């Protein structure tokens, strides 16, 4: 994989299992206004390589804001955010783009697949902004599609697939560059219950193979299946529980 990181390795030597891929320290996000809106307040969160974490909470609890801050799409008002060992505060906009292109994968509720492109090319677009040649990206995309069980749909137009299949294409796109962390925002929100279950199972399978995944959901049933659950309320973490045992924290 060519996650080219110039310069020194960002983290101290650790075994892969221990490596912290996401560290939030006393992070707040306030939107200006009268009165100002404190979307998240004083969040501390530490996610290690290989974890499967559900961030759960009702509407307005700050889930989406937290996802945007973790995904470096938005900056925290205060506190420190470190993703894949990079201190986000010290990176400019271009460097943040670069961080997203190589270290973070996104899965959205609305899929956001490009119309007029095949499933294969949509997945290949996951590495579009790394500068990798299209041929190489397509090879990796084939592997990613087979990982999500869609080898037979490669040449289909992505937006014409079923909802469950579209979300699996989107997951493959997040997966393709083997990012340090995959952020999934309500990945089952637009799916029927069966497709939703299939997608959750796929997420669990990918995690079992070592992928670090953070799922944001308002669905406690889904959250309860995951080995770690972070509950948000009014912008603050109210509960952070880890299930110890098989399929749990590794």
């Amino acid at each position: 994989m060519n996650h080219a990181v110039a310069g020194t390795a960002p983290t101290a030597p650790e075994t892969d299992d221990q490596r912290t891929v996401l560290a939030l320290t006393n992070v707040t996000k306030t939107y200006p206004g009268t009165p100002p809106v404190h979307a998240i307040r004083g969040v501390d969160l530490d996610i290690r390589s290989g974890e499967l974490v559900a961030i759960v909470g009702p509407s307005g609890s700050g889930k989406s804001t937290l996802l945007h801050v973790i995904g470096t799409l938005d900056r925290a008002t205060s506190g420190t955010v470190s993703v894949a060992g990079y201190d986000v505060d010290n990176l400019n906009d271009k460097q943040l783009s670069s961080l997203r292109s190589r270290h973070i994968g996104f899965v959205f509720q609305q899929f956001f697949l490009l119309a007029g492109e095949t499933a294969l090319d949509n997945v290949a677009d996951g590495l579009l902004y790394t500068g990798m040649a299209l041929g190489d990206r397509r090879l990796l995309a084939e592997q990613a599609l087979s990982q999500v069980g869609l080898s037979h749909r490669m040449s289909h137009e992505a937006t014409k697939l079923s909802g469950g299949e579209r979300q699996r294409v989107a997951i493959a796109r997040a997966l393709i560059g083997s990012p340090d962390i995959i952020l999934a925002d309500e990945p089952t929100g637009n799916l029927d219950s069966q497709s939703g279950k299939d997608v959750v199972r796929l997420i669990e399978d990918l995690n079992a193979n070592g992928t670090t995944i953070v799922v944001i959901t308002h669905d406690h049933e889904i959250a309860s299946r995951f080995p770690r659950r972070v509950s948000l309320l009014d912008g603050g973490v109210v509960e952070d529980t880890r299930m110890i045992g098989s399929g749990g924290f590794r």
Partner: protein
Amino acid sequence: MNVSLEPSRLAPADMMRASLIGLRTRRLRSILSGLGIVIGIAAMVGVLGLSESSKSDLLAQLDQLGTNMLRIEAGTGIGIGTGELPEDSIVMVDRVGPVEQVASISETGASVYRTDLVPTGQTGGITVKAVDSNLLATLQGQMASGVFLDEAASDLPVVVLGSVAAERLGVTDGAGGTVVWLGDEWFSVVGVMDTLDLSPDLDRAALVSYSTAEEFLDHGGVPSTIYVRSDPDDIDAVRSVLPATVNPESPDEVEVTRPSDALEAKEAADQAFTNLLLGLGAVALLVGGVGIANVMVISVLERRGEIGLRRALGATKGHISIQFLGESLILATLGGLGGVALGSAVTAAYAWSQGWGILIPTVAVVGGMAAALIIGVIAGLYPAMRAARVSPTEALRTL
């Protein structure tokens, strides 16, 4: 932590693919918005092409006729003169150094009819003029058939007809020995001239020699018009001395004109018309540009989700703006190519139908494409900046 990240990169081929997505998925809209550019560029290429083609035709004509001919006429009207030049004016003109050829024309006042049975007065607008035998050479005219008046026939009742006069008199072959009723005599037609572009009045005339006019028409032979060919380099000097040379007593009664000026004036009038049409083409182009800008702005609004996704995938603001700028540029380029092709086709078809040489000026093709590209950049700039400014978090909230 102070570490450097390799920057996000978008390969040129991928940039092209990204810019083509909007055009591929919204084909009809793209075609319609590109149509404005097609029409604008086609109008400009067509106008320039047609004007060049017609100009080349005119220049060829001027080249053939020469611009070194002057026409001297006696002024007519109250207080100006009698419509006659002094009798010895032709000799005087011939003495001017740079003058190469001189030929005169005199109005005889006679009429010509097809037969003696045609009622008097139905002249068909044909005048009878007495002319020097070197007139045709001086005018650089051509015979359509037969021969021009020469010394051998100088005092015989023979006549040469202008092209329109021959047609009106029903004479098709100048060498066929047709006779016409001229004055009170039968005259033999010995030749018919081709159309004379520089002296169209002779197309509607029947020409006889001075001696014939004197003998058969009782005409004194005072010239009313003199044609002068001069050394092209001295044409202006010759022109300025001619009035005083012809009529030293009252040079004001002499009018000197340059017949080729009329063709040049026609060219200037055509140029003014061309400029007007070019202006209209530019307006069409401007409207086309506004059309593209409009479509691009709408496209940016519609594709906020895609913009958000691309930012999440690692696109920088620059990548987003280049994608939309590229889209506008591709649209304008395709419009420009279509316009150049359409404009060239129209020019070629029209020039061919007029029998002109087909001339599609490089400046129109290159200028047309350049105009399209500039319009593309200008039309795409604002939408591209808007797209780059879209906040990724806002964009991703769009359903």
